[in-house]
């Protein structure tokens, strides 16, 4: 009887593992406060540099908020040092890097909302 319960438990456990979805890390949204961000014509280099990361899904730039935000692809991430180096190589200074819970679309809507 005890042996039967063990078999039943092992079977149930294996089925649970078999049918459970494969979980990956969710996409991340990263915001960066950038100094010197005043000219759209000149800031193109930032977007170009950030989109060059294989992990980048999308990029948003706001001159008004002096903010650059990006979303990463599912399961991918970009380290703070890499981001800082990318923005420095684009000719700008990074004041802060934050990881946000909201999606990049939510960030975009927040930036476009009138004060």
């Amino acid at each position, binding site marked *: 009887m005890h042996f039967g319960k063990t078999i039943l438990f092992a079977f149930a456990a294996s089925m649970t593992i078999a049918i459970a979805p494969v979980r990956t890390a969710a996409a991340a949204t990263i915001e960066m406060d*950038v*100094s*010197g*961000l*005043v*000219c*759209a*014509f*000149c*800031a*193109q*280099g*930032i977007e*170009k*540099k950030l989109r060059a990361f294989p992990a980048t899904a999308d990029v948003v*730039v*706001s*001159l*008004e908020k*002096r903010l650059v935000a990006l979303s990463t692809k599912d399961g991918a991430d970009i380290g703070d040092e890499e981001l800082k180096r990318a923005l420095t*190589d*684009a*000719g*700008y*200074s990074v004041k802060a890097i934050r990881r946000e819970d909201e999606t990049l679309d939510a960030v975009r809507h927040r930036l476009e909302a009138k004060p």
Partner: protein
Amino acid sequence: MLKFLAGSGAGILLASASVAQAKPIAFANGTTVMAEYGAGTMEEAQAFYAPYYWLSLGGGWLRTDSDIDGRTRDIRYLRANYLVHRWNLDDAQANVFAWGGLGSASGNTFRGNRLDRNAGFQADYETRWVYAALMSDLHESSAYSQRVDTLQLGFAPYAHDYRDLAAWFVVQARDYSGRLYHGVEWAALVRLFKGGAWVEAGVTAAGKPQLMMMFNF
């Protein structure tokens, strides 16, 4: 030669790129092409590639037509542009660029081709509302020496954002040496840019057109 600039109150600035008014280095791994028609006194075309945000390499062609005695010079040159310093401020950016190059020049006041030496600098300061730039571009050879000094002051009627069409109203003062033009040439310009395309058009006080187009990619 910079006397007209000294009185302009633009002491915050240093100097600038080519005769063109935009920055000589757009961004790292970026290519910039530019063409300018300057009121019949100068025409210029340039193409630069920037391996870094502080360096671009390329070449150009410059033609000057004297408004005084009809002398012309055609100069083809190779040039390196260098970002000497950049100030990234909270609500502004300021830059100092310098450049130098060599080329070949021909003209109607001397025979054959001469080695052209080119040097210049640009200083600019920009917020989302105001823009100022001072530039000086020198070309000289054994047959001539000419320099174009340009001061631009601009303001934006609205603060554009990254995806917007940007509009600027710009007042320009330009001084030519080398018997190209008498006095200071004043011009009023409208500048528009969106994405990687930039168009600037206007007219001088003498009623002559000025046009500049630039593309970054």
